[in-house]
């Protein structure tokens, strides 16, 4: 249900951008989905394909770039990608690292043709 709403927001954004560029056809939309965004890429793709069907935007491909969770270690200043929910710094072992990325839910780019 959530992903359908997100898919609908992506389509609205595509429509908005397309209106600014009369005469071009949007063929592809790229989004970045963070591991902590609460959005399931597979469900988003499904919701997107259902919503785009039968509209003037068809055919329109959705390309999802998954973004891992990233933490920064204030002790040794290392920024690292989190694997298997292990938040400890892989370099110095500090457990007190800060969240710096992974909450993305961004419209990254459009691909268009004339």
């Amino acid at each position, binding site marked *: *249900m*959530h992903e359908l*709403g*997100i898919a609908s*927001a*992506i389509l*609205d*954004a595509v429509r908005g*951008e397309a209106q600014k*560029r009369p005469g*071009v056809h949007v*063929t592809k939309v790229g*989004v970045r989905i963070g591991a902590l*965004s*609460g*959005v399931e890429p597979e469900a988003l793709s499904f919701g997107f394909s259902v919503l785009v069907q039968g509209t003037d935007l068809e055919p329109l491909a959705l390309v999802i770039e998954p973004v891992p969770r990233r933490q920064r270690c204030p002790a040794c200043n290392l920024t690292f990608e989190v694997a298997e929910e292990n938040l400890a710094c892989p370099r110095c072992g500090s457990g007190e690292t800060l969240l710096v990325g992974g909450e993305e*839910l*961004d*419209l*990254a*780019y*459009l*691909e*268009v*043709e004339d």
Partner: protein
Amino acid sequence: MDRIPIEKKVLSENDRIAGRLRERLREHGILCVNLISSPGSGKTSLLERTLERFPKGTRVAVLTGDIQTDNDARRLARFGFPAKQITTGGTCHLDALRVERALADWPLENLDLLIIENVGNLICPSSYDLGEAAKIVMLRQTAEVSIYFR
């Protein structure tokens, strides 16, 4: 084939409306809180206990979200403060536009505190800014401590 960078948040339209709403609430000096929990944690019960303790004439109102029914608004209206249901019709969260529409016919100058009870769900409501000053997350100990904090 050209690639055009866009680089904006997918929910930027919601954020824009939430910003407008936040500004309106601020102008009226209203504190707005957005109450979130998973289903059945006791959001409505907490609000019942809260509202029954407010003195008569307290300038408080409640917006309450539900997928289908208006049970919550009916429960909360018993205390004599304005309470309105937002029925989402299947959507698992409130968004800023729904809140703005629900507030359209309420005289905001009569309020100091606006409580928004979100749809029972700990995932989706966290993505949507409603123009609130703060989110309050309620956890039901027996169910959630073991699930979320292990």
